Every structure is written in C-alpha cells, then in structure tokens.
C-alpha cells in the first residue's frame, strides 16, 4: 500500500483548502474557497468523494454539526486535517522545493 502516501493534484488542493479554512471546512465552503482563490469551478460531487477518500486514507477527520435553516435542518460534516495530513502536505511542499532548487537559475532577458 505504498501509494497511500501519494496525493493526486486534486487531492492535494482539497487538503490544502481544508487546512486554510481551518474550522469552517465542509463541502460548500470548500467549493467556494477554490472558486475564490483559484478561480476554478469544481463539482460538489467530486469534492465530496475526495473528502471521503482522504478521510479513509487518514489525512482528514470529520464530525457532524452546525445545522442551519438554509440547510433545511441538515447538519454539516466539518473536516479537519490530521497530523498525518499536515505532515504529508509539508513533505510534498519540501519535496517540490528541493526539486526546484535543482533547476538551473532562470535568467530573464530584458529588451
């Protein structure tokens, strides 16, 4: 099961957004956050399915709460990032940075 420590691009995005939203991460806020910060339209269904998958992998955990009138009295499933999730994000970021350091210095020519 070596692949569990690997995240796809979309999974990484969701995980990061959950981290950003801190205490207010559930389906809809994640969709709007991605729209706001990345200007990218994503499906509610793909967000949910990714959230559940990340939870199954142990990078997220969830609890129910916060029913509102607008939701017809349904509770929200709030997601929080786990330590494993944070560590993985950090690890991926470091890996990318170290790779970037290996690239030749880019020189921008001026006209």
């Amino acid at each position, binding site marked *: 099961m070596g692949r569990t420590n690997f995240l796809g691009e979309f999974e990484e995005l969701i995980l990061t957004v959950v981290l950003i939203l801190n205490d207010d991460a*559930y*389906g*809809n806020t994640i*969709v709007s956050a991605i729209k706001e910060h990345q200007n990218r339209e994503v*499906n*509610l*269904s793909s967000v*949910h*399915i990714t959230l*559940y*998958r990340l939870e199954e992998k142990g990078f997220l955990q969830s609890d*129910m709460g916060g*029913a*509102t009138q*607008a*939701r*017809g009295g*349904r*509770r*929200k*499933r709030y997601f929080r990032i786990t330590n494993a999730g944070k560590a993985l994000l950090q690890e991926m970021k470091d890996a990318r940075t170290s790779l970037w350091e290996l690239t030749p210095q880019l020189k921008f020519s001026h006209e």
Partner: protein
Amino acid sequence: MEKNHKYPPKYLLILFRWFCHPDFVEDIEGDLLERFEYKRGEKGLSRARWFFFLEILKLLRPGLIRPLFRTNSILPNAMIKNYIKIAFRNMVRHKAFSVLNVAGLSVGIACSILIMIYVQNELSYDKYNEKYERTYRVLGAYGNPSVPSSFEYQVWGCAPVGPALKQEFPQVEDVFRFTSAEPWLIATGDKKFQEENIVFADSTAFDVFSWKMMKGNPETALVRPNTIVFTESLAKKYFGDENPVGQTVIMENKDPFEVTGVMEDIPSNSHFSFDAMISMSTFQSRRPSVFTTWDYVDFYTYFTIKPETDIASIISQIPQVLENHAGNAKNYYNFQIEPVSDAYLYSDALRQPGPTGSLSNIYMFLTVAVFVLLIACINFMNLSTARAVERAKEVAIRKVIGSFRTTLIAQFLIESMVIVLLSGILALFTVILSVPFLEVISGKELSVEWLMSPQFIGIFIGGILLVGILSGSYPALVLSNFKPAKVLKGAFKTSSSGTLLRQSLVVVQFALSIILLVGTTVVFTQLDFIRNYELGYDSQQMLVVDYGWDPKVQKHLKYIKNELLKNEHVEAVAASRAVPGFFFPDAGTKIENEQGEMIMRSPAIYEIDDDFIPTYKMEIVAGRNFSRDFPADSANSLIVNEAAAKLYGYPNPEDIIGKQFDQWNRTGHVVGVVKDFNYVSLHDRIEPLSLRYSTAETTSMLSLRLKSNDISKALASIDSQWQELVPQRPMVSYFLDQNFNDQYEADDRFGSVFSVFSGIAMFIACLGLLGLTIYSTAQRAKEIGIRKVLGASVGQIVRLLSMSFVKLFLIALCVAVPLSWYVMNEWLQNFAYSISIGWGVFAMAAMITLVVSLITMSFKTVSVAVANPVKSLKDE
C-alpha cells in the same frame, strides 16, 4: 418552515436519498440544499432547480452510491463463489428435483429458441436484397371509378406500367418485370423434361434483385431473344458438371435457345421463386401487342428508386402517369405501389407471385413460445417454493450468523440463475439437434447461423437473466423473509404461505395446456373438414394431364380424347384451360342486366369443352350444358356459376338464361348456370366464374376420370398410351384431389408445428405436476401412514391425493374454455368455410389433460399408497 414551492423538487430528493450511500446522505443533502438556496437568491427558482437536478445527476458515481449488497467485510467475489458452490451442492443433493427443473426449463427454452428461429426466418423474407429498402412493386386493378370498392388490387398486372414509371420519374432506377410461371418442355441431348416454373424476365433482373450470377454476364444474359438463364439446380439437372453457358437447349421441341448464364438458386426466403428465366425480348418478339396494351394481365412489376429519393413523390403522381400513358385505360385501370418489405407478410393484394406468410400465425407461434416458457418457469417456482420448508433452517442459521436479507435474495437468485444457465446451455444443444426436425415439419429452410449473431446472443443472455429473475424472485423473496427465531424454535412446519400461490400457478399452467390442446384439436378438425368438404364436383380418381399448350396435342385433341376413352381404365375425358386448384385468369365480361344495360364485371374464367361438366359431375341448376347439338355454342354461348349470376343481378339463376354477353371478342347469350363449386381453396368464398366454350388452342389440360381402383395399373396403361399418342412430350399428371389439397400445405404445416409445441407444453406441465406430487406426498407421508393403519384402502388414498389436483383442474378448465374458444374462433375467420367449435372439442381437450395428469401423478401416488405404513411411521 418556508413554503414548499421554494424548495427543490421533492422527488429528486427522494431519488437522491435512495441511491446515496446512507453514511453520506445527511451532509451532502445539507450541502445541496444550501447551494440551492444560494442559487435561488442569485439566479431565480427555475435556474436553481435545473442546477439542483444537474448536481444530483453528478452525484451518481461509484464512490457515493449505495452498495448493491451490504457486504462491508467480506469480498463479494468470494461470497458469489460460495453461492454457486451451494447451488451445485443443492442440485446434487436433490437429484429428482434438479432433473425435473433442468429438463422442464431446457425443453421450454429450446422450444422458445426454435420458435424464434422460425419467426426470424419468416421476418427475414427478401432482406437478402441489397436494395431491399428501396425496392417497390406495382399493384394494379380494373374497376369502375365511381365504385371504389370495385377495384381489387393484384400483384399480377399489365406490361406498360413499368416502363411508364421509368419514363415519368428520374428517381426510378431500374424496372424489372417477370411473367407468371409457365410449363416449358426443355430438351438437351437425351434429356427432356417438362419444367413447371419458368418465367419470362427483363434483363434488369440482376440490377433489382441481388441474385448472384455464377456463370455468364448478368448485364447481357437476358438481352437477346431466345436466351435463357438457368438456376444452379436446373443447370445440374440438364448439364451435370459441364458448363452450360453457350450451350443450346431445345424448347417445346422446336426452338433452340442459348443458355447465357447460371445463377444461384433463388434463396428460400424470397417471396417468389422460379427455376429459369427466359429473356423478355423472346416474349416481346412473339407477341408485341401485349407490351403496349394496359388490358393484358401477365406481369409482375418491381422497381428500385435511387438512394435518398422519396417514394411518396411518385405515389402522389400516379394519376399523372395514367393521364400521360394509359390512354383510354385510365377510365377503368388504376395502380398502387407497395414496398417489397410488405410483400411476404403484409400484402393483401390478390394474385401473389408466390406463397405469402401469415402474420397471425407468427403471433400464434410467439404466444405458444411464451406459454411454454411460462409453464417451465412456473414449474421452477413451484418446486422451489414447495421445498421452502427444507431450506428454512438453512436460511434461519444464515440470518442468525449475520446474513442480510439482500444477500439471501442474492443467494437464491444466483442459485436460480445457475439452474437457468445450465438449462439454457442444454437448450442450445437441443436446438442444434432439433433444427432439422423443425425444418421437416415447417417445410422451410432454417438457418442456424442466426444463433451466432450478436442479436441472438443478446436475446439469449437477456432471456436467461429474465427467466432466472422471473422464476427465482418469488422463492428468493419468500425464503429470505423467514423469521429465524420462529424457524429455529420449530414453530415453522409447513409452507402454507405459498400454498395459495402454488395452486394458482398450477391452475395457470393447466389452463395454458388446455388452451393449447383445444387449439390443436380445432386446427386438426378444421383441416379435416376442408379436406372432406363437398366441393361441388367429384374430385375422386380424377387424373389431370397437363400438356402445356402443346400445339400438336391441341391439333389432334379430338382424336387423343377418343383414343384415351378407349382405354379400359378411363371413364370420361374432358379438355380445358384450367382445373380446380390450378391457375386461371380473370376476364372483363359484359352481361345484360334486368334493365337491359350491359354491365362490365371481371369474373374468373374457365375455358372448357362440352365434356367438362359431365366429367366433373357438376350440377346444372338452370339452362343447359354446352352441346355438340348446338354448333353455334363454340361461338356465342356462355355458362356462368350461381355467384356470377348474382353478380350481374340475377338471384334466381333461371333469369340470366338467354341474356346477352360480351367477353373477349365473343358475343352471344348465356345458356346455362352451373351450381357453385369450390375452384379455389376454402379460405375463400366461391367467386363469380364464367365458363366459356374453349377452342382447341385455348386448352392445356385433360381431365381423366378413372374407372378402376387399381391406380398404378391405370397410370401405367395411360402413360404407355400417351407415349404412342404424344411421342414428343412426356406425360405430366397429377391427381386432382391431391393437387387441390396441396393448397392447404401451409395450413397442414401450421397444424403440425402447433401440435408439436402444444405437446411439449403439456409434457413440461406434467413434469411440474410430478414434482409437486413427489413433494406433497413426501410431506403427507405420515398422514398417509396413519390413514392406512386406520384402514384406508389404496384406492381411497390415491383418490385423496388426486382430488386436490382435480379441483385445480376444474378451475383451470373454467378459465381456459372461454379464452380458447375466443382465440380459435379468430383463427377460423381465416377460412370462408369453417367448423363451429362444439363442446366435443373442449371435452376432448379436458379429458386428455385430466387423464395424462392423473397418470403422471399416479407414478408417485400409487407407490406411496402401496407402501408399508411402518416405513413412514417408524422413526421419530
């Protein structure tokens, strides 16, 4: 709560809750509603609803939907393997039931497949033509334009209509005409035969129909006069393995024709067929006038239209064509256009070029297929529910261990699937083995290739799934519903819950069997009835010699007749153009009505000599027969039948005598009326007929009434006499009654196919009954033991066991009688002369069903009744 109309559609939410994984329903639904609110504020209600609908559709994905079986911990594959294993173990443990089940189902499935093959063949007619979709034919009719019903359309029509279409419409690609089949004497080397099925055909034959030319050039083979194209089998008959192309054959003892091609035999699923084609130019050079008149009927006209053109534009301009081309004929002639795809099953035009199929027969057969399959499914359901008690413990234990109801349903469905699949495979083998048998009884060439087509494989797999689910669902639902506590405590002994259903199913089975049996009886009684029907003339011992318009015979007709009369086996001889059951034309005929006007009608015509009516022992109801005492008869006399007299307005036949007539360039007076006789099959009423005094040149057949009963001796003697009298032509003869009854060949075949499948249905129903009897006697073994100990006799016990069935049988009878009466009355409408269904038919069907069922049951009941009660009572 806010008002309902502001909310998303409720049914979508219900749908969502149904398909969504239960763990996720609440939060996703909340998110959805929140987004809906937001969208509604932003874009309005209707947009929001549409958006909501799309969201829900997008949620239909594997990760989010409810799993099919609630097997969270165990891999479903392993369980399915286990179910299959259990299914096989169960089958092996209960061998008798398994054999009954598999036998019933496989026979049922095999029957359905065979019927499907047959139906598929019926539906495949003419589809071998590449231009099938854009091939049409012309139907013509003559009548009075002010009386639209006087036009009776027929396929057989005049010559110029085809070329007129071609000339008028650029969309028409090719026009192909052929004539009705005629006998020809063909000779080559030492071989000389009379061929019955030869046509004149246009050179466009191979452009319109996709017949393959094996030797010779399809473009030019039928262009020159006196050329002939043989079919493969005819070529083999005359030339063996030699190449016939370029060879010469002698036609009718005088004309040399060149063989210009050999084509494949006409496919068996073609709506007409012939053995050879002679070029149309041969006909044209002999009788050019025929090709310009709109009044001479002898052609079947087919044509193709160019791709992507519309036939409607041609149909709408038919009056235009008649106006431009038909001249005076436009006042009494009209034509229609029919797609060739309608030719075999959907055409009700008269004078078809070949036998047509029957849509109602196809429906009948499909009904039988459904019945047989249904009976087999019911067997399966009955046997499995009956055995429910035995499996109750298993179900209970499974439930206690933690099986869900859904998984139990899955288990039983898989079990029934295994049995159905096994039966299906067995059925396929049965089908392959029995197709030749079906070919014999149906008289059709059936192709097994269809079994390899994706279409069939799709139907087969779909059918197996359907039958599996249909017959497995009830047991699955019942068995999986058992309350484990009850069963394990022992409170659950009999499966009384299923008894009512089981009994109703048995009623259905036997009602179906009785319907099929009544059907078979009616079909056979009707066929017997038409064969023995009083036709209006004596068809016994009537030998018909067909000399195919041989001019030498015609020339010496009188002499030949006299010589034949001298033969000790011959009682009477008559010459004519046609005899009952054979081909005859119609003739436009004017006869004076009571007001003195000449009315034009088109009755059928027989050309006969003065011996014809006495030879056939027909009855003259008014006037007189043709006679040599009236020499003018040959020029100015006509006899009609009663139906024709009515047609011209004379219900009393006496009144038409002496009226003027005008027919085919002959005028004079009606001299006699003959009693109606059946000259076509009994499917049709007797139509108006005119009998005209023939000249020798218009005869082609001799009818010989034989004296002796020693038919073979008579035949041999007449044949040798014929060789002396007519050395140039072999004698071709038929017995009239035989030939007349050949018209019912299709009906006979229908009868035999129908009876075979009804028999099989009965057989399967009996298998099921046997299974149920085995089961119920096993259940009641103790009861029977006690009854015997208390002094019941064997007879009483057998009666006791059979009575419960007899009750069901009586109910089935009540259902089946009115249903089958209705259906079979519909079928009898096909015949103008039919039996009325009497009580005898039902009584017979009921008796057969009852007796067969009781015998079947007795296999088990008797052995149980005879058994020593000690055996059933000793344990426990």
